[in-house]
C-alpha cells in the first residue's frame, strides 16, 4: 500500500477523461474484445480473493429458505415515505411511514428511533409477530382497533406476521 497515495491520485476518476481511448479505437475489434475479456476475468478473480461474499452472510441466505411460507399471504409495500414523499427540510429524525396491503387488509407502520407503531385496517384484533430473520420473532397483540406498538425499532431487516382469525399475512421484508 505504501507509496500508492502520495501521487495525488485521489481524483475519483475525474481526470480520467478517456484521452487514452483513441489509441485503442484504431485497433481491431476482436483484439480489443479479447483483451477486455481477459481483464474482466482478472477482475473476477481479484474480487473472489479481495471482496468475496462473507461465508456467514451466505449461510444466512441459505437458512432464509425457512421464510418460504405458502400459507401466508404477502402484504406488498404500497407506500414508503423514504421514496414516495419529499423530505422535510431541517427535520432530523422523521419517522419512516410504511403501508403494506394484501387484498382488503392494510397495515400502516411507523418506525422511529424509539420503536415501532402500527395499525391493522379494517380495525381488528390480531397477533403480530415481529420477524428479524429465519428464527421466531417477538410477539405483540394488536388491540380491538388493530393498533400495536413495539418498544424498540427492528435492528435490521424485518417483517410483520399478522394473524387475524384464520388469515395469516406477512409484510414484505424491508430494512427500517
Amino acid at each position, binding site marked *: *500500500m505504501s507509496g*500508492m*497515495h502520495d501521487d495525488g*491520485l*485521489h*481524483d*475519483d*476518476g*475525474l481526470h*480520467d477523461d*478517456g484521452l*487514452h*481511448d483513441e*489509441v*485503442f479505437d484504431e485497433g481491431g475489434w476482436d483484439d*480489443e*474484445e479479447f*483483451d*477486455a475479456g481477459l*481483464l*474482466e476475468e*482478472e*477482475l*473476477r*478473480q*481479484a*474480487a*473472489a*480473493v*479481495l*471482496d*468475496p*461474499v*462473507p461465508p456467514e*452472510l*451466505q449461510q*444466512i*441466505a*441459505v437458512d*432464509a*429458505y*425457512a*421464510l*418460504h*411460507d*405458502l400459507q401466508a399471504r*404477502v402484504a406488498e409495500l404500497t407506500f*414508503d415515505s*423514504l*421514496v414516495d414523499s419529499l423530505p422535510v427540510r431541517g427535520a432530523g429524525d422523521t419517522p*419512516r411511514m410504511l403501508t403494506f396491503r394484501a387484498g382488503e387488509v392494510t397495515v400502516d407502520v411507523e418506525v422511529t428511533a424509539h420503536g415501532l407503531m402500527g395499525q391493522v385496517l379494517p380495525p381488528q384484533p390480531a397477533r403480530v409477530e415481529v420477524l428479524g*430473520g429465519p428464527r421466531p420473532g417477538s410477539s405483540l397483540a394488536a388491540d380491538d382497533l388493530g393498533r400495536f406498538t413495539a418498544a424498540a425499532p427492528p435492528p*435490521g*431487516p424485518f*417483517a410483520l406476521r399478522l394473524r387475524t382469525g384464520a388469515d395469516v399475512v*406477512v409484510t*414484505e*421484508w*424491508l*430494512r427500517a
Partner: protein
Amino acid sequence: MDRTDAGALVQAAADGDAAAWKTLVEGLSPLVWSVVRAHRLSDADAHEVYQTAWFRFAQHLGRIREPGKAGAWLAATARNECLKVIRSSRRLTLTDDPHVLDRVSEDGTPEQSLLDSEEAAAQSERVRRLWQEFEELGERCRQLLRVLMASPPPSYQDVSAALGIAVGSIGPLRQRCLRRLRARLEARGAI
C-alpha cells in the same frame, strides 16, 4: 446463472426442494453481493441489504412471475434497497477509507494464505494493483465493473436490473470502462 437452470431451481425450491434453494443461493449470491458492493454502502448496510434481498426472494418464491429471471429479480431488489439506504443519508457511510484494502489483506483467509506463498507474491501484488486502479475509476465505471465481475458472470439483463441502465448500453460501456482500466494500469507500469 443460466435462465433455464434458474427457472428450474426456483420451481423446485418453491415445491419444497431445499437443495435447489441452496444451489440458487450459491449461484446468485455473488451477483447480489456485487450489486451491494457496487453501491458503496458501509459493511453493516451492505449485510442488511443483502439479507433483505434474499429474505424477500424466499418470501416471494412460488409467486415470482418469471422464475428464469431470478437473477434480475434479486439484482433489482438489491438495487432498490441500496438506493433507499443512500436516500436516508443519515445511514450513508462511504467506504472510501483507503485502509479497507489493507484490512482485507490482513484477515488471513485461505485464499490469502495461498497468495502469501513466495511464488505467488508477484501475482498477489498484481491483483492488489489491479484492485487499487479499479477502485479509483470514476463512479460509473466502478459500479458497472463491480457488477460484471460477479461469478458466474451475470447476464446483461441481470446487470441492467442491478444498475438501472439499458441492456443495449452495457456492452459499449463495458468496453470503455475496461479500456480505461487498462490505460490506468499501463500508466502505472502495472501491465
